[in-house]
């Protein structure tokens, strides 16, 4: 079997409470019925609107968010329920690099304790071995050794993000949910971290769920890409399909908004972007239902799916 993770009709709805009795008055449909499969040794990209539910999917997979309904299968076994996870070592095999580097690092702990924490949960190492391991992890993410005994606030934004990467790979996991793993890094350090992620993928057959707003990085890293808005997928395809043959208007809009390093033509670029934006607004009705919800995915070919109105089933 090549599937590592299968997500089936996943929904995560958050209650909104308000009023005097703090009653639940409404729900945020953060994730509203998504299906996808992450294969062993592959990188699955998740891109889309800010607030569309990408981090929520990631957190549901690592078990930090309760699912409202749907199923998560790991190596064919149902791990939707917490109790099912322990027995098969799921919590060691599946790690996450968090989007908000600062708030995911305990401010009162030193770097050595932060990075060693997941190791301590699953392995017994001597102090010497542990220190050696943490040092090698720091080295991999390009941080100097004397970081060991410092606290998170003593680091820059990008340095903290690298600490998060080092911690996630510490237990040799099988899947890493990487939520914006390089967004705070300069290009050279970003290249270093991405090279590293690819290298350990080849070596250990690791899989990634790679969440990012940087479409250049996604293009470089991902085999399959899903585009998301409003809690649902609007398009799934291979790298080539998404970048050279996008079908959904939202995907097109996203691609047209990528900033370009071409100072001489920045006016023209802005105009093109505004034109696609305009088109997006006029064509809205054809790509979303009356309630503004994304349609179900239609299959174009074995790898390419797009959310369009199903004309046949409506008998038009």
């Amino acid at each position, binding site marked *: 079997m090549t599937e590592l993770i299968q997500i089936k009709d996943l929904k995560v709805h*958050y209650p*909104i409470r*308000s009023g005097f009795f703090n009653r639940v008055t*409404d729900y945020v449909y953060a994730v509203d019925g998504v299906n996808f499969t992450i294969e062993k040794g592959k990188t699955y990209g998740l891109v*889309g*609107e*800010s*607030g*569309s539910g990408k*981090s929520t999917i990631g957190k549901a997979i690592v078990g930090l968010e309760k699912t409202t309904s749907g199923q998560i299968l790991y190596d064919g076994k149902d791990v939707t329920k917490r109790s099912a996870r322990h027995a098969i070592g799921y919590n060691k095999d599946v790690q996450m690099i968090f*989007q*908000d*580097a*600062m*708030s995911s690092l305990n401010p009162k702990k030193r770097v050595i304790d932060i990075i060693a924490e997941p190791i301590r949960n699953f392995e017994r190492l001597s102090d010497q071995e542990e220190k050696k391991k943490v040092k090698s992890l720091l080295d991999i993410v*390009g*941080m*100097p050794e*004397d970081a060991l005994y410092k606290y998170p606030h*003593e*680091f*820059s*934004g*990008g*340095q903290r993000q690298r600490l998060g990467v080092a911690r996630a790979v510490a237990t040799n996991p099988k899947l890493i949910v990487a939520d*914006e793993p390089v*967004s*705070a*890094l*300069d*290009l*050279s*350090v*970003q*290249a*270093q971290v*991405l*090279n590293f992620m*690819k290298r350990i993928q080849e070596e250990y057959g690791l899989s990634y769920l790679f969440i990012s*707003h*940087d*479409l*250049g990085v996604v*293009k*470089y890293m991902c085999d399959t890409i899903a585009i998301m808005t409003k809690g649902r997928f609007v398009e799934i395809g291979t*790298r080539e399909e998404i970048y050279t043959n996008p079908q959904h208007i939202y995907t097109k*809009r*996203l691609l047209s*908004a*990528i*900033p*370009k*390093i*071409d*100072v*001489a033509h*920045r006016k023209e*670029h*802005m105009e093109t972007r505004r034109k696609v*934006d305009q088109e997006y607004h006029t064509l809205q009705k054809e790509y979303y239902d009356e309630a503004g919800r994304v349609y179900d995915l239609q299959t174009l070919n074995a790898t390419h799916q797009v959310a369009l109105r199903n004309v046949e089933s409506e008998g038009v």
Partner: protein
Amino acid sequence: MSAKGSLLEINNLNTGFRIKDEYYNAVDNVSLTLAKNEILAIVGESGCGKSTLATTIMGLHNAQNTRIEGEIFYKDLDLTKLNEVLYNKIRGNDIGMIFQDPLSALNPLMRIEDQIAESLSYHTSLTKAQQEQRVLELLDQVGIPNPKRVAKQYPHELSGGMRQRVIIAIAISCKPPIIIADEPTTALDVTIQAQILDLLKNLQEETEAGIILITHDLGVVAEMADRVAVMYAGQIVEQATVEELFTNPQHPYTRSLLNSIPREDEFEQELHVIEGTVPSLKNLPRTGCRFAPRIPWIAAEEHEENPELHEVSPDHWVRCTCYKHFHFRDEEGEA
């Protein structure tokens, strides 16, 4: 670098953090100017001192652990000499800051609407009802869907990008003449990013604000900036207009940075990385060319003993002489 008509003028600024009993400069002798209506981008290696520079301008360092030397002139006021009461009047009203780490810049226990209204009630004379109206307006401007719902929510209930937009709403709420934006759009999808960048440009048209834009995204720099300053290890190593910087980069660090951009259709190849690592603040080389250890194949005598900024063409400044002899390791030297 002339200071005529500039909105902000920074002269020989040093910001040092105390480690044990010594101070180590994270911002080292930086001089910069920002003109009205200008967007000055600052790019540089992670940890090179960009945020420290921004927070120094905002007066956010505590005197116990930080040493600040030099001058920051805003309207004949030297901000480094300002007391806390006066600084509070300037922050938000005259200088708005978009922080890099949105979650830690927001109060976790306060509803979004109250956090935005706080700044409004401090700096404006709007009535309560007007404030409420303005809060919804601001949330809408930064592209938050359903502003009414989000106004009532708490920071932890928002996505990363929504939090970032709340910070942007607070920063622009009083239409300050100076905006410092530290990675303002990293957590945003590119369509919202474009919308925020448009918003900043429109705001600038209205108020002639000067904007300092700190970002790692060279695409954003190319689309937005008028001028660019490149920092490495606390110092400015290159400064030029945006066209000049991208078409004629000179400093070895700038050239190496541009070389790390993931290229189209090179998925099988490793990305270019600058050799070596940035030393920690305490172990930064403080003499000679700070970039020299990262390009060891360039002979020592090509570097200056005390690297200075040289004006290589009008308004294009480059530190150290090594740029004249630089080539990538896998290229032949031209010398």
